[in-house]
């Protein structure tokens, strides 16, 4: 068969049904045909009449997908029917028609994408300017210098007037001077939040200059004392829980300017940090990944390779522990987390984020099990060891809960208050506030 075939249909007949599979492509020559489909939101039926000379059935035929509409013949009709090979040959000779179809398809694609974006809503939408900067910094951290330079330069070209342009420019200067990524640089989101929190006082002022690599020198770092935990057997013999002030000192976390009253014009400094090694000693420290409420480590398959001895890898153990937790097998989960933590000294760079999550999970599991002392120990260690973790507030709230269990309202109130003072304002801040209000009665 070298060309399309002519086919006639009686009024009321169906050429194909929605969900049918088929590779024929049709062009209406004579008569009336309607395409019946569901609207994008599935709430209504959409009927579109085919114009004479118009193609239909193209997408499902080319994409080898089920038909997306039912084609119903309204009056006796004649159609040209192409199989895919003949259709392709036809397209080769009629590029203008293909171009027209491309335009139609592109319009449809835009429409679907718009609907997808609508449904995803603001919470899922990303700020692409911020994401581009994060991508640039990712490359910088991974020492992919050329990629990082490209991305920072691209950022500055596209968003030169953005709030974070100063940060991008400084990062680019650091790269060009051969400086490694400043490992204690404030997160992009935090910096943006700080900028946004400057309030009305900053309107009209010069662009904020909040990121200064020299701010992150070890001289600016404040020691944090670890709370000593004595030995105890249970709740009734809880060790002397350390003073709130002995828990990682969060006093120096900057006050968040209240945007309602104008706030302070000063840009908050970095939160307190534990003793940090010299920047020059650690050229490429991996950044900790985002932490959602529940554990969700993303790992390449490569990190899940079994060890030479055949024992479970850290990531395998971690996920097995999560499975145990979900089945309320507390002891099984704890023992797996314990194995992971005992391997800390031999952990690879990829394992570091899991170690962080494991310590938190171990605390969470003890907490659920009712092992208050062990839970307190884990959370305290976590707060000390990972003060910049995105789970820090959760760990602190858990510590507050333990204080509450011990009827130590003051300390519970104190730690919840600290949580409310830590940026950003998020659901943990709100939860801590609720707890304070509840304690106040």
């Amino acid at each position, binding site marked *: 068969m070298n060309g399309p075939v002519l086919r006639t249909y009686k009024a009321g007949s169906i050429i194909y049904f929605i969900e049918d599979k088929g590779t024929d492509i049709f062009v209406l020559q004579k008569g009336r045909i309607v395409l019946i489909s569901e609207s994008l*939101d*599935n709430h209504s039926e959409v009927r579109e009449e085919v114009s004479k000379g118009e193609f239909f059935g*193209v*997408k*499902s035929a*080319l*994409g080898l*997908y089920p038909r*997306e509409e039912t084609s119903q013949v309204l009056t006796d009709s004649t159609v040209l029917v192409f199989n895919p090979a003949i259709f392709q040959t036809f*397209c*080769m*000779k009629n*590029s*203008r028609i*293909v*171009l027209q*179809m*491309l335009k139609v*398809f*592109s319009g*449809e*694609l*835009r429409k*679907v994408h718009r*609907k*997808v974006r609508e*449904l*995803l809503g603001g919470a*899922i939408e990303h700020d*692409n300017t911020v994401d*581009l900067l*994060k*991508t640039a910094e*990712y490359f910088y951290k*991974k020492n992919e210098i*050329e990629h990082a330079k490209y*991305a920072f330069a691209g*950022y500055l070209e*596209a968003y030169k007037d953005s709030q974070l342009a100063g940060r991008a420019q400084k990062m680019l200067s650091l790269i060009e001077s051969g400086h490694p990524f400043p490992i204690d640089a404030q997160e992009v989101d935090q910096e943006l939040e700080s900028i946004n929190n400057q309030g009305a006082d900053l309107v009209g002022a010069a662009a904020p200059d909040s990121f200064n690599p020299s701010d992150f020198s070890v001289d600016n770092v404040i020691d944090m004392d670890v709370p000593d935990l004595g030995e105890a057997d249970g709740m009734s013999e809880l060790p002397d829980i350390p003073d709130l002030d002995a828990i990682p000192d969060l006093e120096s976390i900057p006050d968040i300017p209240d945007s309602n009253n104008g706030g302070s014009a000063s840009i908050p400094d970095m939160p307190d940090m534990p003793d940090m090694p010299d920047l020059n000693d650690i050229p490429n420290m991996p950044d*900790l*990944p*985002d932490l*959602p*409420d*529940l*554990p*969700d*480590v*993303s*790992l*390449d*398959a490569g*990190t*899940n390779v079994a060890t030479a001895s055949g024992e479970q890898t850290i*990531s*395998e153990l971690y996920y097995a522990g999560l*499975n145990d937790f*979900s*089945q309320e097998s507390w002891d099984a989960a704890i023992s797996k987390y314990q194995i992971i933590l005992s391997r800390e000294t031999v952990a690879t760079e990829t394992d570091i*984020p899991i170690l962080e999550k494991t310590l938190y999970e171990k605390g969470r599991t003890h907490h659920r099990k009712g092992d208050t002392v062990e839970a307190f120990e884990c959370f305290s260690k976590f707060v000390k060891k990972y003060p910049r973790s995105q789970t820090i507030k959760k760990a602190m709230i858990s510590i507050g809960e333990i204080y509450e269990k011990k009827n130590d309202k003051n300390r519970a109130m104190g730690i919840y208050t600290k949580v409310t003072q830590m940026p950003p304002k998020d659901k943990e801040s709100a939860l801590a506030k609720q707890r304070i209000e509840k304690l106040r009665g």
Partner: protein
Amino acid sequence: MQLDGLSNKFGKTFDPGKIIFCEFEPGGDFYLIQTGKVKITKIVKDTEKTMDILGPGDIFGEMAILEEAPRSASATAVDSVSTLHFNRDNFVTLMTSQPQLAFKLLTIFTKRIYDARRRLVILLLDDVQAKVCDVFLMLSEKEPNAKELNEIVLNITVDDVGHWCGETPDKVQPVLSHWIKLGKIELYADRIHVFHLNDCRRIVSMRRKGLHE
């Protein structure tokens, strides 16, 4: 494809390892690979994941022509890469002079439209559990014997599931944890083993019909 005549006008080459464009960068051009390989990557949870490796005849970056949206992934030359480089201005010239390329793009668009509509179907569900089920079904539909499948190993993470559902990972995690407990799935660092796709079909179907379990 015989596109040599266009090389002088639209040719662009990249050295091995050179970035062609970066994820989230605004862009208005797309590329057709003539020689060499191009790696498409995305950064997911602080890990750079390779989404695809493209070779001669492949097109990438074409969404920029349509969407005027930032790049959804990064493209990097794996080896010495020569491309034809197009934008909105020369798009029509290219498509009319190279119908085989236009046809290829037409085929790509049909797949993109279908995939986007399929995702929309998931997002329209009003229940996280049904959404997660439908994600499993959508991904299983790529298998040739999809309708008969009841068990499948999907190379996805919790984050990926969240992404397809349009939900944050902490929203989908409780659903997954519940199913782990029931033995319906097994969760690993890099994959999810689903044992009962038929259950997923039932849940999604009931939800679509507006029935409540």
